[in-house]
């Protein structure tokens, strides 16, 4: 029982990071209906932005500290938001009227570019991520050991989810995002500037991925330019599991996949951990293709 709870805590921490990445996939899919393969690499850039920002922030405020960690995270989110907007502007917008496949391949090209450029400029070997926040290990709460980092990961994720929900549900731009995902033509006829909304969506999704990257690096402090591939693919599985285009679904899917993966990693089948997200994905698509919380698409002839 104790071990079960322990794994559950570890799984929730990992799953909440997947949830942050999955939100970016699902938002972009909801509006543009394409899989942004470069999203996992934006997550990687987020971690590296934190890596390079940390020493500079340390010169201003004492590190590791909560304030320092927050500054680094905010900086990294801003950098990735700009990166996401740039990627959309340069690589995806010219193809918006083209086929979905062309955009998909372009996003793969962007993904490769970020990975190879990362290997060139950051180095291919794993780097040690600096401690951003003071870390404690809280032992023996009923036999459980919880690190302060795990609590921070869960807390920050929860806070970001609340902020995101507020933005999407209560603000004007959030309403525009929802309108656009419902019907792009009608939205633009109602005077919504679709370009601005799409840029905003990419910025928002990339900022969340950057936050995920920083949190990931806090939990597992070895970062390398290819670190985004697997979490990116798993987060996409999570987005589909929850019902792609559905924000609470993406968060739920991320937590489920992350938790199940940690349980598998803790069992004797640990070497199969990288396959589990895909197995869940295939199962859900066979049983309920629209995902857990997704609405069924009616096909029109």
């Amino acid at each position: 029982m104790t071990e079960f709870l322990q794994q559950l805590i570890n799984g929730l921490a990992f799953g909440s990071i997947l949830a942050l990445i999955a939100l970016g996939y699902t938002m972009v899919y909801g509006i543009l209906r394409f899989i942004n393969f470069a999203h996992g690499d934006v997550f990687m850039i987020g971690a590296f932005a934190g890596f390079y920002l940390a020493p500079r922030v340390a010169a201003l405020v004492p590190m590791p500290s909560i304030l320092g960690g927050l500054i680094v995270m905010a900086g990294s989110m801003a950098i990735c938001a700009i990166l996401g907007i740039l990627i959309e502007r340069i690589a995806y917008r010219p193809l918006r009227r083209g086929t979905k496949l062309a955009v998909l391949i372009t996003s793969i090209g962007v993904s490769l570019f970020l990975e190879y450029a990362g290997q060139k400029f950051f180095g291919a070997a794993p780097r040690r991520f600096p401690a951003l926040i003071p870390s404690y290990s809280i032992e023996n709460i009923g036999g459980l050991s919880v690190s302060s980092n795990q609590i921070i990961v869960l807390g920050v994720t929860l806070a970001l989810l609340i902020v995101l929900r507020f933005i999407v549900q209560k603000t004007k731009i959030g309403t525009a995002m929802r309108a656009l995902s419902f019907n792009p033509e009608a939205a633009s006829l109602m005077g919504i500037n679709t370009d601005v909304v799409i840029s905003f969506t990419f910025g928002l999704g990339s900022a969340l991925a950057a936050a995920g990257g920083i949190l990931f690096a806090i939990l597992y402090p070895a970062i390398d330019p290819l670190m985004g591939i697997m979490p990116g693919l798993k987060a996409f599985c999570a987005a589909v599991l929850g019902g792609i285009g559905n924000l609470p679904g993406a968060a739920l899917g991320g937590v489920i996949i992350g938790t199940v993966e940690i349980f598998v990693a803790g069992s004797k089948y640990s070497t199969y951990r990288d396959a589990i997200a895909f197995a869940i994905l295939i199962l859900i698509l066979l049983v309920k293709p629209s995902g857990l919380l997704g609405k069924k698409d009616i096909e029109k002839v």
Partner: protein
Amino acid sequence: MIFNRPKSLLLAAIALCFVVSLFENHIQSYWLYVSYDIAVNIILAVSLNLINGYTGQFSLGHAGFMAVGGYTAAVISNQFSGSNPVLAAAIFLAALIAGGLLAAAGGLLVGLPTLRLRGDYLAIVTLGFGEIIRVIIQNMDAIGGARGYSVIHGWTNFFWAFGIAAVTIYVVVALVHSTYGRGFIAVHDDEIAASAVGINPTKYKVTAFVIGAFFAGIAGGLYAHSKQYLTPDGFGFMKSIEIVVMVILGGMGNTPGVVLAAILLTLLPEGLRTLGDVEHVPGISAEYPLGWIANTRMIIYSLLLIVLMLTRPQGLFTRQSARKNPKIA
């Protein structure tokens, strides 16, 4: 076009491959191995083109089928130790076909979910299958697991590689041109209209997957006997992407274009390496101005990919841009 007399062309191509293979000793081994890579990539791209191009499905798991075929063929051929060339050739052929058949069985397994899924979902499920195959191989100690698996015989030569590539091109082109094969294009163009005129889209989709996977498995066998070393990581998601890129740059459903794209995209990274490598340019010092190309060749490759997609989203070798339907080669 050039496929007007396909059968005689096929025989001529195979004969030509055989003649060239007799002169293999006179070709620099580097270029020989690059040419095997080209042939393997042609087989992969042309067979994927049947699934992604002609039938309009989107598979991102072709490397998984290649892995199944490669490992199967290698396991079979490793049992053989003799020097009889005829027997070796027979065993090689049998190993390749066995690999292809097992991969085809995998294709059937993946094809079944396509009954329900389309578009992006299908892409991600095939990607998932590819990854699952890779992880399973990683966990199979009998074939080396993550450490990799040595293949004893380097049987792949110019004749086998390009002969099979020619057969693949012939089969795919002849199939799509046959009365039966028009169904693939019908499924691509309009699934509902196709089923309204009595074509069973499910059957065609599964058939496309099975045939595509079969040739991918054979390509895997050729690859195994040319590199003589297999690692599960060599068959990852990136390899599948590489093949998809060949199909898309060549133009979906445009076999000559896909063949050209497979050749170009195999040569491009090699060419960028050669261009940037001082070793290949004798008499020039380390300050050779193109030296940076070797370091940044993969960055150049990815940038080229983006630029090509932005400027020619319909593929490099497809003439009309407005045309939605695949052109029949």
